[in-house]
């Protein structure tokens, strides 16, 4: 391992700010990209279920 302690790892040889800012922003953008399709899917399924229920209700009863 390149670092002897956690403090040294976080400091990144005085470049900690740059390294962790880069990784932090990337984590944010990647998290958004992973969450977006999951949330969108949930919304689509909910709308679709509502639509199906409505169709059933409006259909002439046999």
């Amino acid at each position, binding site marked *: 391992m390149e670092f002897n302690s956690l403090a040294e790892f976080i400091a990144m040889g005085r470049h900690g700010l*740059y390294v962790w800012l880069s990784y932090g922003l990337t984590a944010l*953008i990647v998290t958004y990209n992973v969450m977006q399709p999951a949330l969108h*899917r949930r919304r689509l399924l909910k709308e679709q279920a509502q639509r199906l229920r409505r169709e059933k209700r409006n259909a002439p009863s046999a």
Partner: protein
Amino acid sequence: MWQWLKQLYHRMGSPKWFYEITERWIPWLAIVAGVTAVVGLVLGLLYAPADYQQGDSFRIIYIHVPAAILAQSAYMMMAVAGAVYLIWRMKMAAWVAKVIAPIGASFCLIALLTGAIWGKPTWGTWWVWDARLTSMLMLLFLYFGVMAIQQAMESEDGSYKAAAILALVGVVNIPIIKYSVEWWNTLHQPATLTLTEKPSMHPDMLWPLLIMLVSTYVLFALLVILRTRNEILWHERKRSWVKKMMES
């Protein structure tokens, strides 16, 4: 081979087939993307030796380079999907092109942001109008342009066609990005990874980069599949197979 390719093409054109087959791929893609990301990041952040000139700031490379390479490949794939839609009118291709745009833009943004942050300790500035940086910024704007046009027109078909044409015209920017570091010898360093030459990096530095590259591509495939499935659910909502799936 040709027969097989033709068959695959026709199957890929079927939203139902795509939706069903990818159901099984998702967990595997997620596992591979996750495991490779963890391995690549641990090796890159903890075990790779510090760069003799740049120190530890060079560790930004493990997200910067894969994101930049992916942003360009994604653009090419988006343009190809657009061309398939223009030529063969395949709906699936239009939806794939549509979902690639925001994902590609995200990776392009990652490359630009991490590049700027890396530039500060290395070049002493966040931004210069260097040819590489400028052409990458152009790529981001091309993505934004494609995204805007995809929603600009009343008819979906017209929007997809116009977006595909812009995507295809914008392909000229890709070789400009690639050769910018050779044609204009400015601040940005030349390519770290090339297909033709033996890498100049130390293996302990190189391996994490290659692993992160694999991870990024798998993550991209996963994101494209997830978003395409949502497009299918929406566009095919009135089809019987979607309704049947919902009721069961």
